[in-house]
């Protein structure tokens, strides 16, 4: 599991189950990290004339995405670590799917829009009841 990177698709499957695992308990966390994958890219440093070669890489670099449940120390045995590499030309597609998985997984957050809509609906109904001239929908 922690050996090597997963394919993007498998990463999403595992990430969903990581979110589901968290949901089974009343508390817990999911950590997602992204950074440039610059492993064994040191050839640029010596050959380049620029002062900061990493600012202008000769070719776009892939992005490393990691996900964990943040278990460490005493709970280290329960730690789940996932990682995947996103090539620079696949970023758009990856993040579109990533957004969906996260939206589904982060269900504990406050759903602001619905409650507001309900309140508005209630207020409307009250108005209608009081006024009486408007037709019910």
């Amino acid at each position: 599991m922690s050996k090597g990177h997963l394919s993007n698709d498998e990463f999403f499957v595992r990430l969903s189950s990581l979110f589901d695992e968290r949901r089974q308990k009343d508390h817990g966390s999911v950590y997602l990290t992204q950074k440039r994958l610059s492993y064994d890219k040191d050839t640029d440093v010596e050959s380049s004339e620029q002062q900061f070669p990493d600012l202008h890489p000769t070719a776009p670099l892939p992005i490393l995405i990691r996900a964990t449940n943040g278990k460490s120390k005493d709970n280290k045995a329960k730690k789940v670590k996932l990682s995947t590499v996103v090539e620079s030309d696949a970023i758009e597609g990856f993040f579109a799917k990533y957004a969906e998985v996260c939206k589904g997984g982060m269900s504990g957050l406050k759903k602001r829009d619905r409650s507001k809509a309900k309140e508005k609906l209630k207020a409307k109904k009250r108005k209608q009841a009081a006024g009486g001239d408007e037709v019910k929908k």
Partner: protein
Amino acid sequence: MPYLETAQQWLTQSTLLLQARPSTTRITTKYTIKPIPDPSNPDRSKPRKTKPSTTSSEPASVPTQAPEPIRAVLILKTYDPVSGTTLKYSTTKAAEVSRLIQILGRLARPMAGLPEVKEDVVMLDGGEGEGAHTPLVESAKPAQNVAGGGGKKKKGKGKK
């Protein structure tokens, strides 16, 4: 460790940080559910930020407080270990998730060494081809465009 007030500010500052230090800066997204305050275990139930002075004096007062209905928090953190720069943004709203992931996707571009361009079609053409020349296009201009566009979006949502 400053918390920025809006996601837009966080995006703008993070973009600048990534442009300056693209190879060391990382972005961590933490989705966490705080534990329900447990009367039998007051030490654990306490939020981390409470002052240490209250720990010994009156632990009994903590369980009496009603648990907050929303315990889930989403925290975005941009961190560059070399300069020590940290930028954070925190939210509890589900409505922001997809937009925040979009922002993460946008920030992935300077991270990968791609220029920030809004037109996806143009970028796909460049990326699929050689891609060697594209990183040089990077400049401060797109950052300003991004800031303007996002700001309007935020207003459009009209949160009170």
